């Protein structure tokens, strides 16, 4: 089993949607929220996703398709 730690950033239109719940329903991954901040304008969630590597990648690709921004928790890693 692999684990990935990601930061999900939700645009206003998705703040009320159960995106993380749906991710766990549609893909064979376990999601675990560690930290979050949600306002009326924006929301972010620091999330641990556990599962097979390929399944995690599919789940994350799906979240991006939904309009969620998915970043490594480290922020941008590719430095100048």
């Amino acid at each position, binding site marked *: 089993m692999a684990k990935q730690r990601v930061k999900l950033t939700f645009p206003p239109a998705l703040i009320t949607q159960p995106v993380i719940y749906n991710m766990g329903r549609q893909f064979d991954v376990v999601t675990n929220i560690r930290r979050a901040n949600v306002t009326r304008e924006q929301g972010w969630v620091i999330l641990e996703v556990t599962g097979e590597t390929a399944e995690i990648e599919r789940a994350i690709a799906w979240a991006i398709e939904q309009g969620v921004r998915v970043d490594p928790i480290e922020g941008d890693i590719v*430095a100048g």
Partner: protein
Amino acid sequence: MSRLAGLQCRECGQRYPLQPIHVCELCFGPLEVTYNYDVIRAQVSRASIAAGPQTIWRYRALLPVDDEPVVESYAGCTPLVKADNLGKLWGLRNLYIKNDTVNPTFSFKDRPVAIAATRARAFGFETFACASTGNLAAAVAAAAVRAGLRAVVFIPADLEASKILNSAVYAPTIVAVTGTYDDVNRLCSEIAEKYGWAFANINVRPYYAEGSKTLAFEVAEQLGWRAPDHAIVPTASGSMFTKIWKGFQELYKVGLLEEPPRTRMTVAQAAGCGPIAAAFARGSLEVEPVKPHTIAKSLAIGNPADGYYSLRIIQETGGWALGVSDAEIVEGIRLLARTEGIFAETAGGVAVAATKRLVDAGHIAPDETVVIYVTGNGLKTPEAVADHLAPPVTISATMEAFEAALVRDRAGAAVVA
């Protein structure tokens, strides 16, 4: 008791022993090295530092290394130039340029990378890696050579050949990843998680980042052991910015500065990639990620890890955050070159242009001690200014042709027309 206290989460405060981890297991917050300043205070003095080497390692007492042999990459101790010509132009009597263009691989990255390579070797890693489009890659590849480590550098597949050369010459393994910039980010995060490699800006990041404190230590020492009134720092992730401030504070904590630092800390960004400047303009501490679109590639971090912490420091110190246009960046590079004889890469142009904005807005008093951090060499980004420079005067090889090309200005000095 050791100088080094351990690692501590910047969010929840959880403590960890010194190990190659960068994220809190509880809340996934970033980890930072903490110190026992009383122990350091008893060990360090201005004299002990003055007796040290002419590199960053003269500040070893305040860096996160134990007794292990350090990777000597000869980074640091770069000139602090009194910029009287530029100062006169702007009406500033105490303007300085911290000229970090002259490090071994021509950018400030040699500083944090020397620490990261030292810790990587001490932790028993055999591979030293990073993801970079330029400066970091060169610094990692060169330091790996000196440290006896294998270097692996990840780059976006569409990176220009000229950018790769500065790293390739040190013979690292270069992995070009196709896909978007975000894809490369996520892959590197996964690789760092899965493989037992030291990634300079991932799992050994807490140690790596501390190297940038030496930019504060040196400036304070070069100013006669005092902190400047205002520091203008080109900023991408915010790591260097936050560590310069930490560095000034530490000097006071260990008794090397008599007064607590009152430096106004200012972030300089490109408008085309200025998420911290944008948050500052909104009056917010929440950084919204952006897609970079600027000639300042070395600052092209759209989602800065230390953005929030940088904004806190700006707020605490009364500084500013500015985003300058590409045209201002080019003019900043040219201005620094023709007034002070220093050829900076685009990040330096950003810092000079941001300072000009502050001067024009009347935010800097004439007697303030101002330090502009210039962190990379202009030969890294010659394309930024290539189309903005005067062409040579071409003549045939005769004295007559040369003299025909000469004119005299009103002051009587000979200039080439």
